[in-house]
């Protein structure tokens, strides 16, 4: 292998920089400019209500934000939301995938129905849950509770975060199911039969054969869901608006409050930078885990 090729500059005698340039340029414009602007604003005194006060703020925005209890509450809420939704969708998705893999009458229709929530846009599904499912007066859940003699519950004021977790899980469960169902279909029947010959019952087969087979697909589900769950916004905006208090304010929603309710672009940008750091910390663990699984 010649030296220039190893360095990646020429392949087959062609200088490749000019060929890569359009893609690289696009990526730079797309990613680096917003990132740079966010970092820049985070060090600025920049409030839309006080146009004259613009100027370099040093670390003031960060100090303000880091000493604000709302930030730590929002971080906790973000992690709780991501963690619970992941747990529910992965466990539920795996069990449903095993269920929908069984042969039963109407399986095709059942599969489509189970996957359909994923096609409903977040705003709409949040509205449906808010007005038709969890509404204390005319919601389905209230009706069900009353029909067995229990008092109706106002979900969004008594269990705000739980309600959000339920809504988001309902939306993402089909995604997990879809990925895991396709993965489970590639499980070799012979392996299952060999395990049956070896004396494994359904539960032993699930833990010893099916689950190890799904490991890779599960890590892909976790990775993709995590990316989207860190930024859940519409469901919160439509249902609780981050409340009551800060009970359902996650990091994305906190940044929205700072930027577009408080008009404080500087602090909001600082929040954005913190969100990037948090996402990167999560990503480091995640990428390692996924990479390890994909290697096997």
């Amino acid at each position, binding site marked *: 292998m010649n030296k220039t090729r190893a360095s990646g500059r020429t392949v087959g005698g062609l200088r490749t920089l000019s060929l890569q340039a359009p893609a690289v340029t696009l990526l730079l414009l797309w990613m680096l400019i917003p990132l740079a602007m966010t970092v820049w604003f985070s060090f600025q005194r920049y409030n839309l209500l006080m146009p004259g006060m613009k100027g370099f703020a040093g670390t003031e925005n960060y100090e303000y934000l880091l000493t604000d209890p709302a930030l730590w509450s929002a971080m906790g809420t973000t992690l709780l939301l991501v963690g619970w939704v992941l747990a529910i969708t992965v466990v539920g998705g795996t069990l449903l995938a095993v269920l929908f893999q069984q042969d039963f009458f109407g399986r095709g229709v059942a599969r489509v129905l189970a996957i359909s929530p994923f096609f409903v846009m977040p705003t709409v599904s949040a509205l449906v849950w808010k007005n038709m499912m969890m509404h204390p007066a005319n919601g389905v859940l209230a009706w069900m509770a009353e029909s067995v003699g229990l008092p109706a519950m106002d979900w969004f004021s008594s269990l705000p975060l739980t309600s959000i977790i339920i809504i988001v899980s309902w939306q993402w469960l089909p995604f997990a199911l879809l990925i895991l169902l396709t993965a489970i279909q590639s499980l*070799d029947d*012979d*392996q299952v*039969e*060999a*395990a*049956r*010959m*070896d*004396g*494994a019952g359904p539960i*032993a087969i699930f833990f*010893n*054969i099916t689950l*190890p*087979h799904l*490991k890779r697909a599960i890590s892909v589900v976790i990775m993709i869901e995590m990316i989207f769950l860190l930024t859940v916004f519409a469901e919160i905006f439509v249902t609780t608006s981050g409340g009551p208090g800060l009970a359902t304010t996650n990091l994305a929603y906190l940044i929205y409050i700072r930027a577009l309710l408080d008009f404080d672009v500087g602090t909001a940008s600082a929040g954005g930078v913190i969100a990037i750091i948090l996402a990167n910390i999560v990503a480091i663990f995640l990428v390692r885990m996924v990479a390890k699984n994909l290697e*096997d």
Partner: protein
Amino acid sequence: MATLQLNNVVKSFEDTQVIQGVDLEVKDQEFVVFVGPSGCGKSTLLRMIAGLESTTSGDIVIENQRVNDLGPAERGLAMVFQSYALYPHMTVEDNMGFSLKLAGENKEARREKVLEAARILQLEPLLDRKPKALSGGQRQRVAIGRAIVRNPSIFLFDEPLSNLDAALRVQMRIELARLHEELKATMIYVTHDQIEAMTMADKIVVLQGGVVEQVGSPMELYHHPRNRFVAGFIGSPKMNFLPVSAESAAADGVTIRLPGGDTTRVPVQGTGCQPGEALTLGVRPEHLVLDETGPLQGRIQVIERLGGQTSLYVEMDDELITLMVDGDVTHRVGDEVRFTFEPRRGHLFTGDDMALESLERHPLASLTRLDHRAASDAEA
């Protein structure tokens, strides 16, 4: 070890019957091969014995116990799959020890049994590897090892060698035969390859369309096929079939008129056969010999020289007849040749494809490898 009996076993999928009433008896320590073209039901029959497929009617009896309602694990059998079906996330050792782990055996006992099986199969250096780091032959051996570890009463093999290349297949064939000697186990083996069947079996079961066509030792099937299907399926190259007519038929032989007009007397039981009846003469390629005064003749279309032997494909009355002759013949494509056969090598089939029984039984027809073993055991 164990015996197996099938009594009128039937398998239906909705309205198609894929196994149509099979009766079979497998003796202790016997190596039985199910052979037949694809779709003949041989794998289904094996899976029914294994318990992976339910039995529609009839009895499957292992060691005098009816096992129809027992699950696969409770029947005490082990199966080697065509795809090996190794557990990809487990090491070789865990693969082999999985059944013991499920049975609740402790780690030391497990390791001991796995090591014992690994020794028999020379797998010791591979115990810590995962299946994907093994070659095809090694995976095959691990699959066999997984079966051995369970110490089953009967081993079941579902086309275990068909994923291997030709050289490895020959080697594994010998290894399996050796293993059968060493373990003194009852084995049932499914294959579509009649060479595997001929070389390994004590008893061959030829299946077609869910029906047993014939059961017998390899030499019995070769020398005394019961019908035209078995005659054509066993033996390579395939047996030649010629339309002939009966001149006279009696209990001590049938005189037939060959396509060229000559007559010859084949020593088969001819009672019930009418003079003038249309019959089919079957002669194996290796039993046709070149003879300048022979009654049959044709033009050579293709010559395949294998060195030691040469196959001549001769066109006779628009049919291609195969001759296996000496490797040193100097014929060329297009030559006219005459050939003949020993009358006792001829098989006659009636209009319904059933064979007329030979008057003399071939001396090797009842020979099985079990007899060899009995003899060597007696000497020892």
